[in-house]
């Protein structure tokens, strides 16, 4: 078989049994792989009423048909589950080398269900699957566990997915790592893995990936690799990593400072990628087959944290545990990054939850009586570092924040006033980007994101983020150059529709979106070309994009089944009502607000969402071959608009 392995592995930790399931041609063509196949499994096998930590809940690890090949950056893996943070659909993906290894072991997808009696890890050696005791690994940081498993199995080249203590302690935003430092951060799959008493999945593969038309495939891959040499975004990402955004964000006023009360600050440059590269950068790292190598490795050289080291930082990890909580001292930020990585926490939700608590504290909604004596002043680096550990271990006030900002507001009895400061959508804290400056299409992504309030590597409306580096690209795709301006409503509905479908397809292939969105060195037509050459299929660009649309729709329908739709497609009030204040003299977006409701109706037209509910229309679902989904949603359309349902406030599910 070419491209795919043609089978998936299903492991039931309750029974200790594992089986191989064939993936038919029709199924592969319909869902492609990665996020697509995972989303289909979550929709079909995980009832919306099931608790995310129920043993019957699934966690899926999906790779794509070109994973493990020479296609640029083709080593990612998508992890999907019912999110314990939002209660809705959840997924996240990560780079590293584990995804390629899964392919070499002969699998397109791994589904884990059930719950082991005690901590275990999976050892997948090609077709052989073994469930091994992990009691001695429980409580270990990812770095330690990775080393111990490799020593135990006697193979340094094994690739391992592992969770940290936060996942074991069911912190609702625990993340998952592979190769120690490559994280799938969002939605809390690490906690779902932990709930199954699963510490890690070690994989070794000795096979290869079949390529249908090798000459054509390698010609495309070589051409694309050549293109990266002169790509402007590749240069930035290689030189200074995703922290290259710090100075841009500060200039354009979209750095989420003090829980998004500000967008720009005179000290922000201290944590810029440029500063990092000349102070604490130890070396650069690349994931499987990556032509960019945006990964950083940091070693703190001075101050109280001197000698600490670890993978990262990334922009989205550093802003929430830095400026979002009022910290600009770089070594304190790198320290927080190392802490969250060690414990296995999503830096975005962790920083977002702490920032929310800080704003509650500032506004007088909570006091030291609630926090166990912690003084949650902005910029208090000691308290933030302490809280990170308390969250991971579910100690004291940390136990409350371990449930995420929205649930914490409820646990503390703060009502609507408390929820107002959570800066979250559908129960998930937004990443560190303020749509009042970063862009309106990006902000729409926060409202409609099918994994909750996260456009971080999701809809990824990068035509307005990095489009200025590619003159003419907005016109080529959207028919106009005006949408490149972040704070215009022109063309943004279509921008979201196109990029959301495109990104879903990229996640089905499991290639890195830094090659297809941030950088536009690999366009849709290129992806179709290498996909067809690898698999031997003859899929058209239209069919390719339609797969992306299908994936978005089944995920949206999962939310629909939870009665989450049009009314929940919104963003925090702050972005709509509070004009952006001035933080630095040359900040470009002073006074800006984000009129999300002006853009959404246009977006719905492209999606053909039902304008009464925001659910995917029966017509579009049937067009996408999702008749069974249409049937599921039919009785829920009227229910969603019942008076009782309209009165409900849904901060999470």
């Amino acid at each position: 078989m070419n491209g795919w392995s043609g089978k998936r592995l299903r492991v039931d930790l309750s029974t200790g049994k594992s089986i191989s399931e064939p993936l038919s041609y029709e199924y592969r063509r319909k869902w492609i792989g990665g996020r697509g196949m995972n989303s289909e499994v979550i929709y079909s096998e995980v009832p919306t009423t099931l608790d995310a930590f129920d043993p019957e809940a699934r966690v899926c690890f999906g790779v794509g048909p070109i994973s493990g090949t020479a296609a640029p950056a083709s080593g990612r893996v998508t992890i999907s589950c019912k999110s314990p943070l939002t209660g809705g659909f959840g997924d996240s993906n990560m780079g590293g080398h584990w995804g390629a290894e899964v392919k070499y072991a002969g699998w397109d997808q791994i589904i884990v269900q059930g719950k082991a009696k005690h901590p275990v890890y999976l050892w997948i050696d090609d077709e052989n699957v073994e469930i091994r005791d992990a009691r001695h690994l429980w409580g270990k940081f990812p770095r330690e566990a990775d080393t111990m498993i490799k020593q135990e199995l006697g193979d340094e080249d094994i690739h391992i997915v592992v969770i940290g203590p936060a996942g074991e302690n069911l912190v609702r935003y625990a993340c998952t790592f592979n190769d120690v430092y490559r994280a799938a951060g969002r939605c809390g799959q690490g906690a779902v893995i932990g709930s199954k008493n699963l510490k890690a999945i070690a994989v070794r593969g000795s096979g290869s990936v079949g390529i249908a038309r090798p000459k054509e495939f390698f010609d495309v891959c070589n051409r694309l690799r050549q293109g990266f040499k002169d790509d402007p975004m590749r240069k930035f990402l290689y030189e200074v990593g995703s922290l290259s955004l710090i100075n841009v964000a500060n200039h354009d006023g979209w750095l989420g400072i003090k829980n998004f009360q500000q967008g720009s600050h005179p000290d922000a440059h201290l944590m810029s990628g440029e500063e990092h590269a000349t102070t604490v950068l130890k070396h650069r790292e690349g994931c499987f087959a990556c032509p960019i190598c945006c990964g950083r490795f940091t070693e703190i050289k001075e101050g109280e944290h001197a000698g600490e080291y670890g993978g990262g930082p990334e922009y989205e990890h550093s802003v929430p545990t830095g400026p979002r909580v009022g910290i600009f001292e770089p070594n304190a930020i790198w320290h927080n990054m190392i802490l969250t990585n060690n414990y296995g926490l999503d830096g975005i939700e962790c920083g977002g939850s702490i920032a929310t608590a800080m704003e509650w504290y500032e506004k007088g909604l909570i006091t030291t009586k609630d926090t166990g004596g912690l003084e949650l002043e902005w910029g208090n680096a000691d308290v933030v570092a302490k809280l990170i550990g308390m969250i991971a271990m579910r100690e004291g006030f940390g136990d409350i924040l371990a449930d995420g900002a929205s649930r914490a507001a409820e646990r503390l009895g703060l009502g609507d006033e408390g929820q107002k400061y959570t800066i979250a959508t559908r129960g998930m804290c937004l990443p560190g980007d303020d749509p009042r400056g970063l862009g309106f299409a990006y902000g729409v992504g926060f409202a409609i994101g099918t994994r909750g309030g996260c456009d971080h590597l999701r809809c990824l409306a990068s035509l307005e983020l990095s489009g200025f580096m590619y003159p003419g690209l907005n016109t080529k795709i959207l028919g106009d150059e005006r949408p490149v301006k972040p704070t215009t409503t022109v063309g943004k509905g279509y921008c979201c529709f196109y990029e959301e479908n495109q990104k879903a397809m990229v996640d089905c292939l499991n290639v890195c979106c830094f090659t297809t969105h941030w950088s536009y060195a690999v366009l849709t037509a290129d992806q179709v070309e290498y996909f067809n050459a690898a698999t031997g299929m003859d899929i058209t660009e239209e069919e390719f994009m339609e797969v992306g649309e299908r994936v978005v729709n089944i995920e949206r329908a999962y939310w629909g089944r939870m009665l989450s739709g049009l009314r929940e497609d919104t963003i925090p009030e702050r972005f709509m009502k509070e004009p952006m204040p001035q933080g630095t003299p040359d900040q470009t977006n002073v006074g800006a607000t984000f009129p999300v409701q002006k853009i959404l109706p246009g977006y719905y037209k492209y999606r053909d969402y039902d304008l009464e509910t925001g659910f995917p229309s029966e017509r579009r679902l049937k067009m996408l071959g999702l008749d069974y989904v249409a049937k599921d949603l039919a009785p829920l359309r009227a229910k969603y608009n019942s008076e009782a349902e309209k009165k409900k406030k849904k901060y999470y599910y």
Partner: protein
Amino acid sequence: MAVFTKAEAKRLAELDDYYMALLDALKKAGVLDDGAHRRYMLTGYYRLVEFLQGKKLITAKQAQEAMAGGFTSLVESLVG
């Protein structure tokens, strides 16, 4: 080829959500059928321009201008 009136062209240029309106107008004028309307919604503006050139509704020069100037240039080429 005359597909739009000047007034329609002006209206399109003033819309925030111009692309769907453009596709709808081309469908109404009989240039796109349902399948083509959906195809160019999924694949983007440049594929629409290629299609119109392939159908000889615009010349190669007009297609080039449509790619440089965006949909307003395209619409101008289609004004009767």
